[in-house]
């Protein structure tokens, strides 16, 4: 079931009900009638980076006034954006642009998780008429709209003219078109007995006791109340017509406020009411001679609908959106021309039969209901369907890319023993190695070779490792030697024990294993590899196409559906030349295109990374079913010293011991990481800021900012995150050392090179292993163009 998440933070954070919040409440109420199971309501947590899930039933009671306590509506569950399931919809309906979690930050996060995005847009006035907006609203709105125009899967506008304006903007910005729909705002109108005057204040009844023009809405420059006052002063007063404003004073209206306050007919012929209840507003509408709406721009123009449904004639600005809503039921004038307004008023006053004819015509007006609004919204959201695909079950083949017969010789016996459903292994290898490959295995599985020459068919083979691998794998997808579905692997990915087919495919979906978020990947500390650069290119590719951003190069065998791989290649002609990650491109493509088909799960690999200092683990493998074989780990001093690097019958027992060792080490890393996080939090509480590790390189000088203290586990290490400002792309090498009281080094780290483009990197700093726990002086060294800069801090090694 595709869930729809709606952020209702504003509804719960404010006690008053604004126009938009009225819409949110009404639409959610109607959506709850139609799709209650699919809706999930969210409120931003105080930590500002996650959401609290609401108890929908209690929330509905709250907005209907049946539950007075806001605090009761929370379900107690918290969800991070990255935890929303791929294929589900995040739908913004509220005025969220002023919330602290800016959409420019949130939407890429959601998109990276494969979540679909939809938004209901009321207007684009801050862009088209920024002079009418407060600067904070303007900039918050630029952020919000800019994000949605780049990331939305569906746009819903409150009017066709607004959608037209949005489409013009999309074109101007050079962005891809987004499917757009229109759903007009509904109306709250209900028949009330006119005789019941108990809730109507006396001054309202008195003001409405003679012929009057009514203008409803907050008084702000955009609403153009000034025109009505001009018209009143110029002609209406002389004709005995009253003028009533009903609405609070808004932003930037000091001059108009003074004019209203000082008006000599205020309270006699001219009235200004604020804070009126629904009954009073209804009363004023019903008794108005004319409702005026001289606005410069609107997203919808609700007062027009409210007047028409009560049968009152409307004079409003000649603006596309108002003409769309008011059709021929309204009369129009230029909002910059008070005389035209006066002329229209004089016409109706002088021609009562024409006025009555308008009233007669208005009886045919049919307002849009909230039910219809919600229905159209749901229809639009339903266009974001998740494509369906049935996973193929005939998994019998493994495809390996290799140029190392000896590695293959050591790996295939593991596959032979532990993956009984694999009947054939296809080896993609250099032409010259065909013989060696065929000689490396003589077991139950059929061995087939597919040479580079056959695949390349005259194309040159790239030198770069990542580019070569990706090109060859992509070309292999077109080969008939490959089954429709197969396990893609490498010559050093080994199963550690019996593996069932269901590890790769179930009746409902394919299982894919990730180990990181590729948009957070920083590379191997100190020495970027071809692999890292491939990851960065893949990140850019995925982000450019708004695909999810999980990193699937988990160094373990994974299942591939050839038809889907080819579909991806066909959709992105030339991508095979781009040196991308063969795993992450494919699985993210499938997750985006067929969210229900892919079950994305944490990886199950032993030996990835090879060393705990290589990068911060984002995902911890809970289960280890495969090994990414590193020979160095079996050498003296390595974690698997003394274990067998080759297959023998009964090796499962030994493999379990290796897993136990790796887990223990993993747990230690985890504890060290948690200790460092604890230090950061503690530091933030004590100092009001996160500990700064900053390197600034300006005009050939290096400036180092460090906290006064840092906690390092005595027998372990932490990866200290540094921020770098290096606009001149200077060569930077960073290292650390511990010194004694005489400033003599007592322990030195290993220097790392900072990539010139890096704005962040992590420096692994080890504790004073083998020493007593306590305070040590830690020196951070930065070398730049033969100059060395240093900064010191106290390290608590415990």
């Amino acid at each position: 079931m595709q869930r729809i998440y709606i952020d209702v933070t504003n509804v719960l954070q404010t006690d008053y009900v604004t126009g938009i919040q009225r819409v949110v409440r009404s639409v959610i109420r109607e959506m709850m009638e139609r799709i209650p199971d699919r809706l999930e309501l969210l409120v931003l947590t105080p930590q500002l980076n996650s959401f609290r899930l609401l108890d929908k039933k209690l929330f509905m009671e709250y907005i209907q006034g049946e539950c007075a306590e806001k605090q009761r509506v929370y379900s107690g569950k918290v969800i991070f954006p990255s935890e929303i399931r791929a294929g589900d919809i995040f739908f913004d309906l509220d005025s969220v642009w002023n919330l602290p979690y800016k959409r420019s930050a949130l939407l890429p996060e959601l998109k990276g998780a494969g979540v679909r995005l939809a938004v209901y847009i009321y207007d684009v006035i801050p862009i088209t008429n920024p002079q009418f907006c407060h600067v904070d609203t303007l900039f918050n709105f630029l952020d919000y709209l800019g994000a949605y125009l780049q990331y939305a899967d569906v746009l819903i506008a409150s009017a066709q003219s607004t959608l037209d304006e949005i489409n013009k903007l999309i074109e101007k910005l050079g962005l891809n078109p987004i499917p757009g729909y229109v759903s007009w705002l509904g109306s709250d109108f209900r028949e009330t007995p006119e005789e019941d005057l108990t809730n109507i204040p006396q001054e309202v009844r008195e003001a409405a006791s003679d012929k009057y023009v009514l203008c409803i809405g907050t008084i702000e420059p955009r609403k153009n109340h000034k025109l009505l006052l001009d018209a009143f002063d110029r002609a209406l007063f002389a004709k005995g017509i009253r003028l009533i404003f009903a609405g609070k004073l808004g932003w930037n209206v000091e001059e108009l406020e003074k004019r209203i306050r000082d008006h000599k007919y205020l309270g006699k012929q001219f009235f200004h009411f604020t804070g009126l209840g629904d009954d009073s507003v209804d009363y004023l509408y019903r008794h108005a001679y004319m409702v005026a709406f001289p606005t410069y721009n609107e997203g919808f123009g609700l007062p027009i609908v409210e007047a028409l449904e009560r049968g009152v004639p409307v004079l409003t600005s000649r603006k596309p959106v108002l003409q769309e809503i008011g059709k021929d039921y309204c009369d129009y004038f230029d909002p910059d021309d008070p005389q035209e307004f006066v002329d229209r008023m004089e016409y109706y006053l002088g021609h009562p039969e024409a006025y009555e004819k308008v009233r007669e015509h208005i009886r045919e007006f049919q307002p849009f209901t909230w039910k219809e609004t919600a229905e159209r919204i749901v229809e639009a959201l339903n266009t974001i369907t998740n494509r369906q695909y049935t996973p193929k079950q005939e998994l019998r083949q493994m495809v390996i890319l290799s140029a190392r017969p000896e590695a293959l010789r050591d790996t295939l016996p593991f596959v032979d023993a532990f993956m009984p459903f694999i009947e054939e292994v296809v080896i993609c290898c250099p032409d010259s190695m065909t013989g060696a490959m065929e000689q490396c295995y003589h077991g139950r599985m059929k061995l087939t070779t597919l040479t580079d020459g056959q695949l390349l068919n005259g194309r040159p083979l790239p030198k770069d490792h990542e580019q070569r691998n990706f090109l060859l794998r992509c070309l292999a997808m077109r080969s008939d030697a490959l089954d429709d579905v197969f396990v893609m692997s490498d010559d050093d990915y080994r199963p550690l024990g019996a593996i069932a087919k269901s590890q790769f495919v179930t009746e409902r979906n394919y299982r894919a294993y990730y180990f990181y978020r590729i948009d957070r990947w920083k590379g191997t500390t100190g020495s970027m590899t071809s692999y890292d650069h491939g990851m960065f290119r893949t990140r850019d590719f995925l982000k450019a196409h708004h695909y999810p951003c999980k990193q699937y190069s988990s160094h373990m065998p994974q299942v591939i559906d050839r038809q889907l791989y080819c579909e991806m290649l066909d959709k992105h002609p030339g991508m095979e030349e781009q040196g991308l990650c063969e795993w992450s491109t494919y699985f993210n493509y499938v997750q985006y295109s067929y969210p229900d088909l892919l079950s994305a799960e944490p990886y199950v690999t032993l030996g990835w990374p090879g060393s705990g200092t290589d990068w911060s683990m984002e995902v911890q493998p809970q289960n280890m079913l495969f090994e990414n074989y590193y020979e160095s780990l079996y050498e003296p001093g390595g974690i698997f010293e003394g274990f067998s690097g080759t297959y023998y019958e009964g090796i499962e027992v030994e493999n379990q011991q290796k897993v136990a060792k790796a887990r223990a080490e993993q747990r230690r890393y985890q504890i060290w990481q948690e200790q460092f996080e604890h230090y950061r939090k503690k530091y933030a509480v004590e100092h009001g800021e996160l500990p700064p590790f900053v390197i600034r390189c300006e005009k050939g000088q290096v400036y180092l900012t460090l906290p006064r203290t840092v906690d390092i586990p005595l027998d372990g290490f932490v990866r200290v995150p540094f921020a770098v400002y290096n606009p001149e792309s200077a060569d930077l090498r960073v290292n650390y050392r511990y010194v004694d009281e005489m400033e003599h080094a007592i322990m030195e780290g290993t220097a790392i090179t900072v990539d010139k483009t890096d704005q962040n990197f992590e420096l692994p700093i080890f504790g004073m292993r083998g020493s007593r726990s306590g305070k040590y002086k830690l020196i951070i060294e930065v070398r730049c163009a033969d100059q060395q800069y240093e900064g010191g801090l106290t390290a608590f090694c415990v």
Partner: protein
Amino acid sequence: MISRAETEVYSKLFHIAKDNMESAGREMAPAEESFLITVGIAPDTADLLRLHDLDKRAYVQAAYAALLRRFPEDRARTVWESKERMSDEKYRRFLLTTLVRSGEYTGKGIQLYNNYYPGIPGVSYLRKIYSKMPTKVKKLIKKILR
């Protein structure tokens, strides 16, 4: 982290609004770079290193946006413009200290990040020191702040 392509979109959108503002005879107060600094900003942290390149006026706008999540009102802008003769570092330190000490900042729950101006301790730290001071000194500080 916002990519260059994404930044370009926000920049173009800013210019569309700016052109419309100027067509209406008004000026777009915050500079483009101050706006772009806020795009993609983490909801719970204010990364001061991102503000490093800005000139004094843009820095004021960006610091307000990063720490208080709003742009300075006209009066505040005038006050900061009147102090522009201060050296760059002194000016920035003074601005950041003022903002960090404000009740508005404390209420936002935003953490300073990559603060390369040691000596601008956060609110909690200041409070800790303050609470240990003798009453006389506290009174004097209150008087000065007033």
